[in-house]
């Protein structure tokens, strides 16, 4: 019984980590590659989740949806709709510097959350959408979890391979050039805005997919899932800890941060009851502290960005700082 229990838990954790890895990979494209500070991941996550839920559930009175389409269509649509939403957002914010983009995207995620919470006809508002079908959901507990994990891991691997290929391609090199030295890239005639858009939209697709996978895992999606803490900031911490600019870092960050997040709860459970409740607030403190420690002692993350080609004379940060401030 013990072993089965642990195995179940490990599988569940791995599935969650997989979903977060997808979100983190998406963010890596936007931030690590494109230099775009997207603080509204929750918005794309929510859009993807709801799109898939609306498309794959049964018809319900008074609400859009009930198309009862196959799950795969739901997932692909989630990615497409997330990309569609990303396009105007990036267009509006394209001239904004990172701080401003961060604030704007926080606001956009909030508006998306409000719309989802309030519009009955679209999302069943605060009640959320339930009875979302789950692939292999009818199998017994262990098998069903395992099946879902296999699907998620497969998708993560596909995503990883896809993104790595893009990174190594001319497009990827151009993105890095733009990020590191924009004036030079512009002088060479590169169309900065379009490239940035591509990075933003490309990243958003994975966030939408992550949302869809989450909705189908729980057979439901409710507005509380679009909480900034667990759907945006946690992913940022994952990427920074893991190493922004590095895809393996993005995945590693998801692994480490989620394990720590989950583990801190077990720790606080061991305390006597009166302190256990207060201790739950301390979890947030620990996550904030972890972020500070990473920034202090290893801001490039556990797996720094792989430097391709000859290293520049003044190493990583120094030169880049001057360039970005200019």
């Amino acid at each position: 019984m013990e072993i089965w229990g642990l195995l179940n838990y490990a599988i569940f954790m791995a599935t969650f980590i997989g979903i977060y890895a997808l979100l983190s990979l998406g963010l890596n494209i936007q931030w690590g590659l494109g230099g775009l500070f997207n603080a509204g991941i929750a918005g794309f996550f929510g859009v993807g989740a709801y799109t898939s839920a609306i498309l794959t559930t049964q018809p319900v009175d008074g609400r859009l949806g009930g198309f009862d389409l196959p799950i795969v269509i739901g997932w692909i649509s989630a990615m497409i709709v997330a990309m569609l939403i990303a396009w105007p957002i990036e267009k509006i914010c394209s001239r904004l510097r990172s701080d401003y983009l961060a604030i704007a995207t926080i606001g956009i995620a909030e508006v998306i959350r409000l719309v989802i919470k309030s519009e009955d006809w679209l999302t069943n508002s605060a009640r959320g959408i339930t009875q979302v079908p789950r692939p292999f959901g009818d199998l017994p507990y262990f098998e069903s979890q395992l099946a879902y994990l296999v699907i998620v891991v497969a998708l993560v691997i596909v995503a990883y391979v896809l993104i790595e290929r893009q990174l190594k391609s001319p497009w990827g090199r151009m993105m890095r050039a733009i990020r590191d030295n924009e004036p030079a890239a512009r002088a060479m005639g590169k169309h900065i805005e379009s490239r940035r858009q591509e990075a933003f939209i490309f990243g958003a697709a994975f966030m939408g997919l992550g949302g869809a996978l989450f909705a189908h895992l729980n057979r439901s999606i409710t507005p509380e899932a679009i909480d900034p803490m667990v759907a945006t900031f946690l992913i940022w911490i994952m990427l920074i800890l893991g190493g922004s600019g590095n895809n393996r870092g993005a995945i590693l960050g998801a692994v480490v941060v989620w394990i720590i997040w989950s583990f801190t709860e077990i720790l606080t459970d061991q305390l006597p009851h009166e302190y256990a409740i207060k201790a739950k607030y301390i979890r947030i403190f620990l996550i904030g502290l972890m972020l500070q420690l990473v920034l202090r002692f290893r801001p490039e993350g556990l797996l720094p960005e792989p430097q391709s080609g000859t290293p520049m004379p003044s190493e990583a940060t120094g030169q880049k700082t001057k360039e970005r401030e200019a």
Partner: protein
Amino acid sequence: MKNFKSVLVGGLLAATALAGSAAADNIKVGIIGGISGPIAAMAPAMVDSAQLAISQVNEQGGIGDGQKIDVVLGDSACNPQNATDSVTKAVNVSGIVALVGPHCSGATIAAANSVTIPAGILLISPSATSPEVTSLDDKDTVFRTVPSDDYQGRALARTVLGNGTKKVAVTYLNNDYGKGLAESFKAEFAGNGGEITDFAAHEEGKASYRSNLAELAKGGADTLMIFDYGDGSGLTILRQALENGFFENFIGGDGMKSDAPIKELGGENLSTFLASSPVGEKSQSLEIFNEAFKAAGGDPDAIFVTTSYDATFLTALALEKAGGDKTKMSASLRDVSNGEGEAILPGEWEKAKKLISEGTAIDYKGAAGDQNFDEKGDVPGTYALFKVSGDAFELVSEMK
């Protein structure tokens, strides 16, 4: 790097396992609620009343041969991500046999769907009021001791009409709780000839709701229905309405029956404030619970403490009846609270144990209602209207 990674992962998982394998002798019951997050202010009291039930059980003989119940406390943070994570841990690592919670509807649905239903673990939520919980495909493992929003809203509508108030304005919190109550209220109230002059949602956490109140008051109603939480924006709205002279009468759902308005606004200012709450037919149950909870240092007026207590006590009764067999939990739960049998009131664990061992049928009559589950695991709920008297709430009348 790869080595380091696997060592790290392995180490953390091992530590996780170690943490979970303590005290394998006792029976473990999970209490999982929104300790951090939007309902953080309400959760501690609910956890406390659940703990009260457990300590009563443990003091009066425990389960079966005297096994004690260990509590596995978890934080759902009122969102599906944390809920599924903590419930999965509780079920798989700590090995709970039943779960009291989660508190929020979205969290409950997610946790049920991904863990407790597949794993066959009994789940009783004390506060998930969304109608979506009823329609879960749950193999009869999901129950709740709090009635669906539908019931309370309708009962309140009938009572308000019955008191002669035909014209109201409605403001509700924009979440599943507030919306559910408001919609069912509206359906019944308007459907029976009442007039709702304005029906508006509001978000929590704003500093001023005066403009909202001004809009609501435009219709000329003198009664405001507030479907919100008494220690959240419900408090702010009540305060600003009283201070600026909007509306004469205020009626709230069970979320407003909280000690926060009394504490912050003063009972003397709340003479026209009424709140509904689920109660048992034998109001004796409620009194017994109130005494016991007060003696244990808790506030019996806090939101959902009655349902939380009932859920936990019922879980223990089901455990006793099932004789430790996890697969019989649902049937046992129904057995101990189906309206037939000798009445067991809150705290009467010893008596219940004796009767169960003799094979006599028992029927739990809870502090928040009789808790006779229907075939979907819901309870119909009886309600009463409360007014503020001095520093506490006082029952005014039953609601039909």
